């Protein structure tokens, strides 16, 4: 049964032809498709071209690094009037092997009234945010953006160190002191409500 065949890096899988093209975890060389990772052989049919795509998949040892357009989870580390620094924790739902540094510029925080953004009214150190990677950035950080309704702070800590409850798109409230603090709040997707109910 080919579906459960285990491949090692460098293993020759099949010929490249009109019907077979290399997919994830593979590469083509000299007219053949080779596996580039350790994992399982997988075939899928491309619905447009009707070609068979050969993948090698491994759910146990996925290496993931931030890429352009990826949705990432990050922890805010420090803020100044021009930008906010953070460490990227996960790409999608896949945890990174080590944290990467990210940076949100003032103009990438939200879509409206860009020039009136005050960063300290959007993020605070310790907040957990969801953001999109918009550029690989410089030698140091990836450039992130939260300029979408679904992006922004998902877990905000009040000044008393208590998890706050969102009250509007730009405010969160501390359940203990009832103080309101400003944040660029993410419009929470359904899946997050599910974990929220499960854990908090």
């Amino acid at each position: 049964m080919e579906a459960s065949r285990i491949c090692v890096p460098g293993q020759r899988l099949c010929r490249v032809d009109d019907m077979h093209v290399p997919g994830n975890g593979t590469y083509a060389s000299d007219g053949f498709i080779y596996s580039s990772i350790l994992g399982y052989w997988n075939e899928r049919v491309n619905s447009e071209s009707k070609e068979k795509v050969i993948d090698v998949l491994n759910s146990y040892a996925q290496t993931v690094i931030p890429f352009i357009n990826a949705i990432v989870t990050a922890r805010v580390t420090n803020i100044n009037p021009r930008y906010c620094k953070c460490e990227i924790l996960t790409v999608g739902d896949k945890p990174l092997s080590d944290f990467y540094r990210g940076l949100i510029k003032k103009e990438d925080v939200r879509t409206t009234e860009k020039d009136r953004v005050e960063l300290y009214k959007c993020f605070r150190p310790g907040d957990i945010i969801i953001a999109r990677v918009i550029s690989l950035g410089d030698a140091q950080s990836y450039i992130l953006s939260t300029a979408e309704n679904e992006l922004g702070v998902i877990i905000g800590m009040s000044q008393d160190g208590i998890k706050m409850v969102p009250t509007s798109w730009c405010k969160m409230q501390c359940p203990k002191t009832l103080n309101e603090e400003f944040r660029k709040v993410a419009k929470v997707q359904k899946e997050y409500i599910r974990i929220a109910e499960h854990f908090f």
Partner: protein
Amino acid sequence: MPLFKTFKITQPKEYYEKFLEKDVRPDNRELGEFRPTVLNIGCVTTAEGSSLVKLGNTSVICGIKAEVAEPASDGKKGYLVPNVELPPLCSTNFKPGPPSELAQVLSQNMVDFLTDSKCVRLEDLCIVPGKLVWSLYIDLVCLDFDGNVMDACTLALMAALRNTLLPVVTVDEDSGEITTDVSIHQKLSISKCPVSTSFIIFDKKILLVDPTSEEEDLATGALTIITEGDNLCSIYKPGGTPLTDTQMKTCIDRAFLRGREAERLIEELIDK
């Protein structure tokens, strides 16, 4: 469940609290439960004595190289030189280069462990008084850093000392010439078997024995108790959350229990 994983990374403390509420740890252990301990001796034949200890995932290899040296100021005392290495191999926390602060602390802990418990008498390492003594270089290399390296190190250290075989070295009285006879070996005389037991304090009240590295990262305090048979050798509590009398008593009782368990483990292995 990927969201579950994300929760663990973004909010590790809350993640742990959910488990501890039910008096269980994420790895299914009770609060006072040690991880499975695996002990192996004589695994490196280039060393005079060696051992490998696994505490759950944490593993430490110990190798003892014996060399001969002149004693300090014509005394009878030999040298014990323990060093703990935490190479970048064992965890993401360590970078290549000189020993990290933690490695230095652990090395000093090993010195204290050996001197406080007096398990090896330095006079026993004497070959010719005033002329020649043994110097035992004890190197403990952490291969997998998953918490409680202290207990793994002390266990590896004791097992390796018990495993050590020294060649017979003689000094000609007239010429002062040194000869080594590799055909006969002698054991070190070790009378005692001290054992360390480490705890961490979580969230200022809960005590966890044999912490993993995740637990150590969240700890608000740590405690190490060294016992030897029915005697208490030392208690090491470097700051952190203060403990009450009762808590201290519980820890000491737990340490005695662990001490006997570990001692039995070493004895069984040596008898083989």
